[in-house]
């Protein structure tokens, strides 16, 4: 049996496939032939269909004429040509193959989708066009107002600018990145000569470091005072190349050039520590340590994570000097060591804090610029208008593709989380990050802020504000990165305090203490805790009677103070940052941890890469 629509040709005559030929061959009167032709043309059929329908209609009219009807009667009986064409087209389409109908359906669905998409785009574009941000806060100004409330005599920045002026050109060894200031350094003589000839500059740094705050005013351009000081020092010349100052700049666009200056100053004072030791000037050594810690305190007092990270790094500089130095009686009396111990122990209230106030302001600033404001804390993404301003604030040329970027804004507006959603996620992240910050390092695995950070990123907010990620300071949860750095340096602090207490014990008793208990409480308030376990830090005397202070390290195994593999003592603690991820299994290869959380034997490249995770971390061991 034939399928639907199939015609059974039992005739053997040649069949025309051109409908015009079919009509011509039929020999119908012109008016009738015209009706057939018009019907076929209007029906817009496939070629074979046209010929077939034409043959049938021609046969129909021929039958009518043969039956004695006139052409006019037949045309009248035929009815409306337009309606006939339309119905024939619809009927023939129904009889077409499945693939054709599927294609038609897909085409119709695609057209509908496109139409709906365009309508939605126009709706969101209109919504974006009629909305404008409500930039109600000038967050950088709010922070600057705090600084203005502090008397000028308590602000260090003017003195640091004077340091730049007096320093003149940066010493060449610093330009070359050769500023380790170690006696074994081949450039030591050059460094020592420079330090000696700039004693007044170093004194000025110490004076500045004693002031309570830095007092740097936030702005999107280079601080005019810094620009002038750099010119006076001969470090820069030519016309000022800077971004025009914006009254209410993007928080993410404010510059913090003072941080780099403070790091340089800290390195110079660290160098002067080495020189002071060589000159047996314990007082200057202590002054330098106090000043380095003062600069760290100033940075930690700023509300940005990046400032606090610099504060942590500067603290690290001071503690390294203490841990590496030989604090012999020829330079330091007992009182000196006690004072140094108090200085270090009391620094930053005993524990450096990382807070997220500045980050919160930064994100609130982004929201007020990129979102509409319904007055009740909600709104939708309208970023377009602000994109230009962002480039202007950063002093960047607007990219050629900017119109395309702007055209994409309605799409972003449609898919972006609402202002309230972003705000809620941020609140949860900052709230949990602040809580996590208080956790000791051996409880890293209890942190939940990274999960909120991931949620925030998954919400799509990162695609709207790419600078957000860098603004918050890290590719991964900044709470983890910043706090891990802090914990690392706090471990150094604990080690430095043990070293000072042990030195005092040596002076009084002629021997190193055999256990930490002997130092407590007269020389050390309490036993420092191992950052990996929360248990008391390990202290042993070697067979030669030399003390070793150590942590059991990532693997949690007490190797008796032996650093195995490539571990090189305290050097390995510098890897605290990634070690901190260990409990969350970040960065470690699959199967690296056994059921107890200890490190399983590693092979191949992993063995080298993660060697720091093996063995003990030696925090202090006298030379």
């Amino acid at each position, binding site marked *: *049996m*034939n*399928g*639907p*629509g*199939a*015609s*059974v*040709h*039992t*005739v053997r*005559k040649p069949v025309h496939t051109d409908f015009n030929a079919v009509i011509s061959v039929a020999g119908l009167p012109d008016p009738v032939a015209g009706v057939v032709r018009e019907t076929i043309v209007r029906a817009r059929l496939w070629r074979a269909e046209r010929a*077939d*329908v034409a*043959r*049938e*209609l021609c*046969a*129909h009219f*021929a*039958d*009518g004429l*043969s*039956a004695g009807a006139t052409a006019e009667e037949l045309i009248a*009986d*035929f*009815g*409306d*040509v337009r*309606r*006939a064409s339309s*119905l*024939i087209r*619809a*009927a*023939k389409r*129904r*009889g077409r193959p499945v693939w054709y109908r599927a294609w038609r359906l897909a085409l119709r669905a695609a057209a509908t989708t496109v139409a709906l998409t365009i309508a939605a785009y126009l709706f969101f574009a209109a919504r974006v066009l009629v909305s404008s941000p409500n930039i109600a806060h000038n967050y950088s100004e709010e922070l600057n107002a705090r600084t203005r409330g502090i008397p000028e005599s308590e602000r260090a920045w003017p003195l640091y600018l004077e340091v730049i002026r007096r320093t003149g050109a940066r010493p060449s060894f610093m330009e070359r990145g050769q500023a380790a200031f170690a006696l074994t350094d081949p450039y030591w003589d050059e460094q020592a000569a420079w330090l000696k000839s700039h004693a007044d500059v170093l004194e000025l740094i110490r004076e500045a470091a004693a002031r309570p705050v830095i007092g740097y005013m936030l702005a999107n351009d280079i601080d005019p005072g810094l620009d002038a000081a750099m010119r006076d020092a001969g470090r820069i010349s030519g016309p000022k190349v800077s971004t025009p100052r914006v009254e209410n700049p993007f928080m993410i666009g404010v510059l913090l050039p003072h941080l780099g200056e403070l790091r340089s100053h800290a390195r110079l004072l660290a160098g002067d520590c080495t020189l002071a030791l060589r000159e047996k000037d314990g007082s200057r050594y202590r002054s330098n340590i106090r000043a380095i810690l003062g600069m760290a305190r100033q940075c930690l007092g700023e509300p940005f994570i990046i400032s606090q990270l610099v504060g942590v790094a500067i603290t690290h500089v001071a503690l390294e000097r203490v841990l590496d130095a030989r604090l012999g009686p020829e330079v330091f009396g007992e009182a000196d060591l006690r004072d140094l111990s108090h200085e270090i122990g009391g620094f930053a209230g005993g524990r450096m804090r990382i807070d997220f106030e500045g980050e919160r302001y930064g994100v609130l600033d982004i929201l007020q610029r990129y979102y509409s404001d319904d007055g009740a804390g909600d709104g939708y993404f309208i970023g377009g208008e602000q994109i230009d301003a962002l480039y202007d604030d950063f002093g960047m040329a607007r990219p050629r593709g900017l119109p395309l970027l702007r055209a994409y804004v309605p799409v972003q507006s449609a898919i972006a989380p609402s202002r309230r959603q972003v705000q809620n996620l941020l609140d949860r992240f900052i709230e949990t990050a602040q809580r996590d910050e208080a956790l000791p390092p051996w409880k890293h695995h209890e942190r939940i802020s990274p999960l909120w950070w991931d949620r925030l990123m998954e919400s799509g907010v990162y695609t709207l504000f790419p600078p957000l990620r860098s603004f918050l300071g890290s590719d991964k949860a900044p709470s983890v990165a910043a706090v891990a750095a802090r914990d690392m340096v706090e471990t150094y602090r604990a080690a430095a305090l043990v070293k000072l207490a042990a030195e005092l014990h040596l002076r009084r008793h002629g021997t190193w203490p055999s256990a930490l208990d002997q130092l407590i409480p007269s020389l050390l308030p309490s036993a420092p805790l191992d950052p990996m376990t929360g248990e008391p830090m390990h202290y042993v005397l070697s067979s030669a009677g030399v003390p070793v202070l150590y942590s059991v390290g990532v693997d949690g195994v007490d190797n008796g103070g032996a650093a195995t593999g490539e571990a090189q003592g305290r050097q390995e603690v510098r890897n605290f940052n990634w070690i901190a991820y260990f409990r969350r299994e970040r960065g470690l290869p699959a199967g690296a941890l056994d059921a107890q959380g200890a490190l399983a034997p590693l092979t191949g490249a992993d063995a080298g890469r993660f060697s720091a995770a093996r063995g003990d971390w030696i925090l202090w061991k006298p030379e």
Partner: protein
Amino acid sequence: MRIEQQLMRGAGPVAILKLLHGGEMYGYELIKALDDQSEGVLAMGQSSLYPLLYNLEAKGLIEGFWREADSGRDRKYYRLTDAGKKRLADDIKQWRALAVAMKGLGVLPASSVESLAGGAS
């Protein structure tokens, strides 16, 4: 009497299927038969008939084929398929049920329904 378009939309296909149940027919023949056998009530113009035939063909209820008539002209004839026969039987049952219902409502005279009930399929 002309039938409303909506009614004709339901009645037309059944009428065509019924006519073809009696044997193969071509378009002009179907028009004449509809006109004659329904006393003009179901008469339809060609502009309606051919789309109706193509629809039934698309549904697989009828099939068309070309054959040379005695006059020597080619004509496209139509005949019922098996599916068409089944559909016709179903439609007839429905129309009869409808007629009985109409009789109950007094829309149709009792005599016409009785003759329907006893008529051949």
